[in-house]
């Protein structure tokens, strides 16, 4: 337990600096983009000079960039994410409303790509060079090469429009007043297509990694020793080869979480899922700087936490890592 605590403490200190850099960088990038929130707003309304000036003042855009950044950081220090100019609501509420949907999508898609990917990887890696190995490798690579939005659209056309097995989008039925288990089942049905679109793309990564790791492990002495002891092939594959190939996959899991967040922007748009990715896209289009900063901040925290969990898991799975960390 102390090993984990040391790790957490060290990571937390580092994270603060990472977050500061992320926030300032995002702020400056967004300021460099031409046009501000008022420019984005008047696209749909028009308006005279007086109205535009009034809006800039109301939204605090008549202050200098540095003042606004300083104000933002100062509020953040008090755990206040500020007010969204386009939603006219506290940013915390806007984000909390969407975060669960994105988390649900990400966790499900990760479980799908990791679970199915590593299982298929074991299946393929159990007999390297066989037909099923080649078939799965090529198939998964083809999936990896497919753009996410295209896969999403094809899934919609086949399963929602033609077969009508599944809803075309959304996170749950509209205004259905469902509660409890019925609601959970409703959400699960709505998640099938977006989770598949997001999960199948990353499946190849885990599959290939698992397979490569197993090919490597087959050549190790302990496999030879296991064979010499007369263990069944099944036991050798699962307990010796696959287990050793699993470790790099855990690392990948952490790295992948950040990419998943990026991929969710596309999938959330195609499937009309009200999540953080879509919100981020809207925040950029409407130049809602504080909202985008809030989303980036939450995403950064999410990635940091996931990586921390991965490191802790790693320390438990591989005693060698824990030893060196504790010793350092």
């Amino acid at each position, binding site marked *: 337990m102390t090993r984990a605590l040391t790790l957490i403490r060290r990571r937390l200190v580092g994270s603060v600096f990472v977050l500061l850099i992320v926030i300032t960088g995002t702020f400056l990038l967004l300021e460099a*983009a*031409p*046009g*501000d*929130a008022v*420019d*984005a707003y*008047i*696209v*749909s*309304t*028009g*308006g*005279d*000079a*007086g*109205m*535009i000036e009034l809006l800039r003042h*109301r939204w605090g855009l008549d202050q200098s960039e540095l003042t606004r950044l300083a104000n933002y950081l100062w509020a953040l220090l008090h755990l206040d994410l500020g007010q969204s100019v*386009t*939603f*006219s609501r506290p940013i915390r509420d*806007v984000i909390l*409303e*969407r975060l669960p949907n994105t988390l649900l999508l990400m966790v499900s898609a990760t479980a799908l790509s990791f679970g199915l990917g590593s299982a298929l990887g074991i299946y393929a890696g159990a007999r390297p060079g066989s037909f099923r190995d080649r078939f799965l490798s090529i198939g998964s690579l083809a999936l990896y090469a497919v753009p996410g939005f295209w896969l999403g*659209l094809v899934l*919609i*056309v086949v399963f*929602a*429009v033609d077969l*009508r097995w599944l*809803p*075309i*989008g*959304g*996170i749950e039925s*509209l*205004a259905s007043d469902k509660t409890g288990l019925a609601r959970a089942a409703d959400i699960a049905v709505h998640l099938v297509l977006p989770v598949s679109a997001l999960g199948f793309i990353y499946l190849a990564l885990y599959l290939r990694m698992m397979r490569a790791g197993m090919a490597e492990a087959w050549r190790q002495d302990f496999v030879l020793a296991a064979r010499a002891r007369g263990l069944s092939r099944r036991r050798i594959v699962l307990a010796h080869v696959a287990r050793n190939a699993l470790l790099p996959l855990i690392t990948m899991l952490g790295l992948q979480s950040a990419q998943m967040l990026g991929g969710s922007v596309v999938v959330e*748009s*195609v499937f*009309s*899922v*009200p*999540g953080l990715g*879509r*919100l981020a896209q809207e925040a950029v*289009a*409407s*130049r809602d700087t504080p909202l985008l900063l809030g989303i980036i901040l939450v995403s950064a925290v999410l990635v940091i936490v996931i990586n921390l969990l991965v490191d802790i898991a790693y320390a438990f799975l591989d005693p060698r890592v824990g030893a060196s960390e504790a010793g350092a």
Partner: protein
Amino acid sequence: MSGFTISRRKMLAGSAMLLASTAMQISGWAQTPKKGGRLVLAADSEPRNLNPAIVASNGVFFISSKIVETLAEASFDGKDGLAPRLALSWEGAPDGLSVTFKLRDGVKWHDGKPFTSADVAFSALQIWKPLQNLGRTVFKDLAAVETPDDLTAIFKFAKPTPFQLIRNALPALSSVVPKHIYEVGKIEDNPANNAPIGTGPFKFGEYKAGQYYRLTKNTDYWGKDEPYLDEIIYQVLPDRTSAASALEAEEIQLAAFSAVPLADLDRISKVPGLKVISKGYEGLTYQLVVEINHRRKELADVKVRQAIAHAIDKDFVVKTVFLGYAATATGPVPKNDPQFYTADVPTYPFDVAKANALLDEAGYKKGPDGKRFTLKLLPAPYFNETKQFGDYLRQALAAIGIDAELVNNDSAAHIKAVYTDHAFDLAVGPPVFRGDPAISTTILVQSGIPDGVPFSNQGGYKNDALDALIARASETLDTSARTDLYKEFQKEVAADLPLINVAEWSFISVARDTVGNIANNPRWAVSNWADTYLAG
């Protein structure tokens, strides 16, 4: 009135269209409006402020017009193109200093309080004039609103204001909100801006960000037996392809405002149970315009502007970019406007040879590489069609030796580049014609507008004769004299080309056959839908 169904094929066939529409008419009559049901339709954007008295824009009206009503609505057959809503009659004084509205009796707000002239006075003076994007211009001289009794509101103007303008502004600018809700606190921060309270056939139900808006039936509505529908659900579908899929999957019954892209209409019109309707948007005409920066010395020469106008094949643009769902333009007022349009203006038929000759005459000979000069071209990104026309214009200009460099921005960046920074030579814009040239059309060519005002003359164009004409029209009270001045205005703009009007278009609805009473007024998508129903 029944739905008026047009598929592209029928429209091109022409004679077949007449037959088809007659057939629809017959089946339409056979259907009697039915009560009840939930109408689910696509919404592609989520307006943050739903108060149409503050934000007079189609995106807000699309949802709010069912909740908050205006004094009058546009109509195909009503007098002056209007039908009464909260006002029963309107009368302008000959001196242009007052307009008297007689209001509807027995109307209640959604919270049960009675609607009176005090609400109209409050909305006009406290919201339309000081806060509303369009009202700030039209009602700028409104000095007071007298309320001699609960059902009479007399608008008093400090300067003579043409009654024709006020009348034409009613459908878009006169949303009435309740005084008793808005007189407490700051109007901009009122919670009712996000959950509007009105007099309309539907009440605001709930809004789930990123998912849907739900409107429910107002059982106390003033219209006899109206509304027919129990509920309206706007499903938020941000992706451009989702609306078509959702219609096919029968998850939604209606997609308005061209939520189904033009390219998909041919296919979707053949899906059994779906109809494509191009009627019901006559009062919401968008104009495809080439905006010109007259600060560029080449473009300050009228011959160069005429050459560019001759280089554009408007018929080709209508056929290819708009797939036939548009009309070619002759000037700054669209052809479908019943009051002001005149065809008697200088025209610029497609003629590449003439365009080349004009440029030679202007002194911009082709260089050894075949190019005369280079221009920066910024197509507005708001519509697919404005972007596609940008691509076309680049090719059309290449044919006359002008090298156009395309600059693509997102909406906010485009607005800033064109209207604040003036960092363009040519831009493609979609201004809206709002039923009267004084609302948002003359501003496109008038001089003296401060930097940063969007959809206005930011090209540095100054024409004293035209400015004088605009000023005179804005003070002319007599309707026919005023109309004549705007006809002259169209001639002058078409002659001097401060900008080039290429085409006029509006939106397309796709609906299931069961949706009744679609498109029965010129602003149908943004009207109150009290008589919309779902059959069987």
